């Protein structure tokens, strides 16, 4: 009989402890980021969209070879002066898994992952066959705070 009451009282006290934890948090600061008005700064190593510094690229095809999902497509031709020239350099964002291996493998740091993260679009065709040679390719996505 005494145990019965002890159980009830102990149970009530234990529930109070739980209530105290939530009460403490009731007045702590909210951790939410109010997204469209408030934006997070991406970290330095953030892996966003694949981007290209065109003048640095030596067309070594390392990035194309390392890509686990084969989302990069590159072709070049040789000019009369034995210089390599782009035919195309396409990037299929639908397949990209943002692993950053192309960035890591590039001998001249030509290909890199930028800091764009707001990449919602209305059509899939905008994600397919992104022309890396076009400097304005991410114009509509680029955020002013992104370098």
């Amino acid at each position: 009989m005494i145990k019965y009451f002890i159980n009830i009282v102990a149970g009530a006290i234990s529930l109070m402890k739980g209530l105290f934890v939530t009460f403490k948090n009731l007045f702590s600061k909210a951790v939410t980021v109010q997204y469209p008005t408030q934006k997070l700064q991406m970290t330095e190593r953030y892996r966003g969209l694949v981007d290209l510094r065109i003048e640095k690229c030596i067309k070594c095809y390392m990035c194309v070879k390392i890509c686990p999902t084969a989302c990069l497509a590159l072709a070049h031709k040789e000019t009369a002066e034995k210089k390599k020239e782009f035919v195309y350099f396409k990037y299929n964002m639908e397949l990209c898994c943002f692993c950053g291996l192309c960035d890591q493998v590039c001998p001249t740091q030509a290909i890199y992952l930028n800091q764009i993260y707001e990449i919602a679009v209305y059509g899939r065709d905008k994600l397919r066959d992104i022309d890396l040679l076009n400097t304005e390719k991410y114009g509509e996505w680029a955020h002013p705070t992104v370098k």
Partner: protein
Amino acid sequence: MVSILTFIIMIAVGAAVLGFIAVSAMFLIWWERKVSAHIQTRYGPMRVGWHGVLQSVADVIKLLLKENIVPEDVDKPIWWLAPFFAVVPSVMVFVCIPFGNLFGIDLIARDLNIGILYIMALTSISVLGIFMAGWGSNNKYSLLGGMRSAAQIVSYEVPMIISMVTAVMFAGTLSMQKIVEAQRGMWFIFQPNMAVAFLIFVISATAEINRTPFDIPEAESELVAGFHTEYSGMKFAMFFLGEYTNLFIVSALAATLFLGGWQGPFLPPVLWFLIKTYGIITVLMWVRWTFPRVRVDQLMGFAWKVLTPIAFANLAVAGWILLK
């Protein structure tokens, strides 16, 4: 002439009560979202209106515009009636909830002399709505939810009513208004055995209205949404409305029976009543967002092995005090 006037007054009072229920439910939904959000260190709704006050309005509009989906194999009459059975009794209870008085007019639709009895009777009906929804949906989750609900509400009615009877014994009347007036000098809760009765009432009322930690009829983690799994649009909104109306009712009852109803110093009576009621509601919300859910057998065990004996013992003590 007199009959027409009474009729108009009846319509006006009915409209006022319905309007209050709708606004109160919408406010409570917003308030619950805010309280839960801040407990979880979030903001909750922030976009629609100032701190999202109009969020519930937006939600209601969305629910009104939704297509009315009737699953193929439901038991149609029962399925259609269930939401109304969930809402109507809880609306009817408002007849004898004393809101206090404003400019000399008592804010109570009708002060029945058997007020408490009437409320006890009506709150028991709402289980029918839940059980009908569970049975009529022709869905195993809903059926399990409905069965659980029936067992739960019937069990918890016993301690709840006994604790209400304790208050009635002290007041010596069944009329809600008179019970409030009986607490003029001292609220009932300041007497030790009434405090126990208050606790039992609040706990069993939480179970009665299916809120966590006793929300097993709609236990999300195993029964998806319990009895209202198959409902959508306005019918779902009816269940929701019923739930929040019930929440208001039990808190109002607790305030009236144990916390002195609309009585209090300085502030107008209506304000006192609302402060007490919403205070209890906030505590119930705080409890809801803290505790896990109990299991169905533990729930029954708690009702019959803990609450009911204590409630009866408490009643006996109350009787002894009164006779002394």
